[in-house]
């Protein structure tokens, strides 16, 4: 898990039919940092994540990862470059076992040769999964499924991870466990883009943060700056 993995998004626009979901969004993510996106529902956070991952057609703008332009590349090519994704809503393969889900994470060529070692490391990092290896992933609790989704993503040897609402719908204990894991990944040098409805926790973790409102970036700064910003405090922290 080396530190490379910077990302620059420049003037990105994405539309669903005629509806513009992202309007000239620009942001830059430095390698090894946590960059948080906050915004209300429908602001375009998930759209931005999916566009970066190559899952949505892009209307304008460009995305540069590690100095390489990746705009418009198919998602599996983007994965190959080390850009991983933990999608919203714990997207495990429900009828596959935990073990199969994990192995499925090491699909890309670069990850395949390292699969065994990473698999062992994941069982260290997520002891709960070890107890459930042969169980169908759909039968796990919400928190366990999220752990599995994160572990599966790590099996792909990413250098940058896009997290979309990783604590959504989890118990407070599980949510703080997720944040603990994200912090740990950050400490290991992983670049992280984090979309979270838990604004306070995610800003506390963030090096850089952006506020997204109806498809535009309206505010940006360090996590600490935004935590103190009266507009953020009023709109997103209810203070």
């Amino acid at each position, binding site marked *: 898990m080396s530190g490379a993995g910077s990302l620059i998004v420049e003037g990105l626009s994405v539309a669903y039919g005629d509806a513009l979901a992202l309007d000239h969004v620009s942001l830059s993510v430095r390698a090894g940092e946590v960059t948080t996106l906050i915004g209300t529902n429908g602001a375009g956070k998930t759209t931005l994540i999916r566009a970066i*991952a190559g*899952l949505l057609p892009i209307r304008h703008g460009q995305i540069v990862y590690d100095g390489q332009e990746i705009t418009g590349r*198919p*998602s*599996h090519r*983007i*994965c*190959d470059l080390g850009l*991983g*994704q933990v*999608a919203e809503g714990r*997207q*495990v*393969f*429900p*009828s*596959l*076992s935990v*073990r*199969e889900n994990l*192995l*499925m*994470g090491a*699909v*890309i060529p670069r990850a395949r040769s390292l699969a065994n070692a990473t698999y062992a490391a994941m069982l260290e990092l997520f002891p709960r999964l070890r107890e459930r290896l*042969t*169980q*169908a992933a759909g039968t796990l609790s919400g928190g366990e499924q999220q752990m599995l989704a994160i572990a*599966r*993503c790590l099996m*792909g040897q990413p250098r940058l991870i896009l997290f979309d609402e990783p604590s959504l719908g989890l118990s407070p204990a599980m949510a703080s466990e997720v944040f603990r894991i994200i912090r740990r990944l950050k400490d290991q040098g992983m670049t992280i883009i984090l979309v979270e409805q838990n604004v306070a926790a995610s800003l506390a973790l963030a090096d850089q943060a952006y506020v997204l409102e109806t498809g535009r970036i309206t505010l940006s700064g360090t996590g600490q700056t935004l935590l103190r910003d009266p507009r953020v405090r009023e709109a997103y922290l209810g203070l």
Partner: protein
Amino acid sequence: MLTQDLFEGVTPRGKMLFTAGLGALLLLPEVADSYLISILTLIFWFAYVGQAWNVMMGFAGQLSLGHALYVGLGGYGAAALYMHLGLGPWVGMLVVVPVCALVGMAIGWLGFRFGVRGVHFALLTIACAEFTRVAFDHITALGGSGGLFLPVVGGRGDDLLMLRGSPQLYYYVMLVLALLALALCRIVTRTRLGYFWLALRENPDAAAALGIPLLRVKLLAVGLSAGMTAVGGVFYAFYYNNLFPDQVFAMGRSIEILLGPIVGGIGTVFGPVLGAMILTPLGEGASLLLEALGITLPGTKQVIYGLMLVLIICFRPAGIWPWLAVKAGLVVPPGETDLREKGEAE
């Protein structure tokens, strides 16, 4: 060892039953009358094409309601090559299988490229089968709507190469084809590609996020499924010796193809076989019974199939095989193996 691999997760009892059943089927033509042989040939045919359809829907989750297209193209293609160029069915397959695979992939590509998914994609497959049917009605070189008839060459004994001969010959050929399809599916579900299909079926978004090249993986499923079905079409042409666009390309045929896997167990490898073993005798038996009673009711078979489908959907939505296999102790129940077996066991 290959056989060990093929029977992985099957209990000794399951293996014994399979071997005994296969042995009986191999010896049966010695004693059976031609009617029974024709029914069993039909069962093998539906087991085979059901298997082919299952590759696309059961393994990769892409619904096709137009598989008659590949039966028809395969049948007409091989028949045309035989009648006009004198090429036998096996050589013909070398042509029609890739052609059908490509046709399938082209339809798949159109659908996937323009985001036609799920039910709408299924409608696209119907449309393609239907307009091909209409087109063949008007291709006079292939008989048009009046049908295409293959010359029946008699008195030369069984000719495996040209697929001309006795009911026994067709029986054994179709049995072998069905077994090959069964083995192929068993193998392919254990490959990386098989797992990619599973991921695609279970959660396409997650599969894409992991770097699985979805388009390629989908096209391979459609291509394999269509190519396999084409072989079924070639057999059909040489077995019945006549082809009518209204019959081979019919929507009803597409439906008949997919009933077996649904009844037997969609996404399982043995399901299509079991489904064919249940449905075909049921349909034929009902017709026979009514005939014996002196009643002529067209469409009996369809009604029986319809009822069967309703019962399955109500009581065993995953199909009969997953339930039966565990209940009768034919496979190791899921959870008690290293779940590689799950594809078959559940």
